[in-house]
């Protein structure tokens, strides 16, 4: 298959801080970009493709491309909220395969803490021209209260418990304790999670991800260039994206679109879910992880609660290692968008550069899944299959 066939992620960089009161968005975009280029061993003059989301201030790519003085042949500002940057990796690979660019830069940066925007609990402020606006906005739709509906429905259909959901946070805290940059580094217990305030019943405060400033960047490039660099090779071998909404009012909110993108990406890669050694799964809330584990096929639908229990997600001792940087639940959710950090930690794992306490031995195959938008309302999942190449 001619496909994405074989673009590589040559550079990955996560801004170290979680609070940036004194830097502009443009500065953070630039620092992320330069960090990823330095990681790859490339310079900004090598960049001819630019991928960014609406976190980059200005119209599409224009202002940040100008700020960085990029000389571009290709750009893409696909916006699917938090999954945008995961989508960008696949789109960059497609552009490279099509000969449209050689070195693609993908950036994310944001300052929701410094700007006082804790987005999850706030009512959305969407465009009234959106056809769904008048049927949702009046009801106080917020990210938090619709994910809580997914949790409630999952509990109803499958007997999932608050304690089982709490195990997702417990695993994240086990990983975050080793990450000196993580927003939350303290170990938490199941009792502490279910004992934290019920912010939106049935979700507790500790079922929710952190709000952080920061960001990151990725460099995607063609095989010849990747192989000329002095970095371990991380190759994209499968990808898939989709959208899922309310199906005209006949929906099942306990199955996400990842049930389609996961199998499609795995098929393209020619591997099975059982081959995956490490997974980065979008963790806006604990329930988000549970849904993806089931929909991607790590366990059967309805079995997510049992799968995550008793440390099921803790690296080294669990059933599968996920989000070994501490994830969005404990480490970082920059700009309220988690798709970038998900790819970055998968690259660290495949390079063998994760923290030794959480590094998966011989990690040669990883899956990344991001959920942009809102489960239960409308969302865009994107799945990547990445391998360590010789």
């Amino acid at each position: 298959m001619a496909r994405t066939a074989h673009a590589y992620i040559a550079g990955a960089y996560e801004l170290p801080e979680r609070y940036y009161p004194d830097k502009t968005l443009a500065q953070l975009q630039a620092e992320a970009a330069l960090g990823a280029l330095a990681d790859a061993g490339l310079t900004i003059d090598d960049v001819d493709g630019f991928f960014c989301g609406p976190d980059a201030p200005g119209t599409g790519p224009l202002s940040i491309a100008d700020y960085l003085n990029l000389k571009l042949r290709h750009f893409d500002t696909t916006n699917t909220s938090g999954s945008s940057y995961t989508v960008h990796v696949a789109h960059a690979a497609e552009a490279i395969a099509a000969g449209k660019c050689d070195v693609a830069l993908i950036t994310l940066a944001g300052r929701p803490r410094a700007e006082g925007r804790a987005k999850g609990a706030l009512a959305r402020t969407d465009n009234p021209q959106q056809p769904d606006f008048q049927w949702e906005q009046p009801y106080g739709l917020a990210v938090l209260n619709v994910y809580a509906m997914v949790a409630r429905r999952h509990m109803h259909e499958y007997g999932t418990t608050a304690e089982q959901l709490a195990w997702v946070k417990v695993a994240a805290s086990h990983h975050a304790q080793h990450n000196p940059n993580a927003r939350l580094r303290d170990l938490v217990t199941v009792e502490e999670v279910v004992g934290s305030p019920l912010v939106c019943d049935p979700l507790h405060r500790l079922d929710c991800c952190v709000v952080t400033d920061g960001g990151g960047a990725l460099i995607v490039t063609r095989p010849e260039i990747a192989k000329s660099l002095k970095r371990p090779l991380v190759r994209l071998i499968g990808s898939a994206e989709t959208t899922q909404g309310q199906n005209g009012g006949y929906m099942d909110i306990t199955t996400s679109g990842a049930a389609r993108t996961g199998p499609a990406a795995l098929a393209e890669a020619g591997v099975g879910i059982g081959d995956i050694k490490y997974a980065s799964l979008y963790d806006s809330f604990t329930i988000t992880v549970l849904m993806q584990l089931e929909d991607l096929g790590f366990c059967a639908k309805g079995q997510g609660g049992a799968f995550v229990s008793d440390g099921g997600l803790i690296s080294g001792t669990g059933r599968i290692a996920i989000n070994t940087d501490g994830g969005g639940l404990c480490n970082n959710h920059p700009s309220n968008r988690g798709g970038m950090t998900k790819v970055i930690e998968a690259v660290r794992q495949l390079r063998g550069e994760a923290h030794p306490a959480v590094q998966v031995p011989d990690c040669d195959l990883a899956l990344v899944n991001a959920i942009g938008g809102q489960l239960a309302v409308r969302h865009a999942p994107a799945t990547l299959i990445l391998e360590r190449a010789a």
Partner: protein
Amino acid sequence: MKIGQRIPGDPEPTPETQAFWDAAGEGRFLVRRCTACGKAHWYPRGTCPFCHATETAWEEGSGRGTIYAFSVMRKAEPPFVMAYVTLAEGPTMMTNIVDCESDDLAIGRPVELVFQPSKSGIPVPCFRPL
């Protein structure tokens, strides 16, 4: 937790939906059905989301349904219940459950329509337990 009335946000009617909000102003709840394939859908639109015929029409809804999913937004002031209600006509709609005790709510519980005036006075369809 006692959940009272709620003042919804303003829905901002459009030419595609003005008839719905006009009817709501008269205390009537409309549902949109495709006259080509016969299926009711939500939210109401001029193009059927299933067969994509443009012959969709308003009809009087029963105002009855059951709770498909709900959450209790305790963090808000005042707290409110976000919900999906499956209408007797078939489709499931986003709404708020009002005038209830949140601990008494359950998926599958029957509910009935009750209009709640928005900030600028437009009646917005909400539900309360039967």
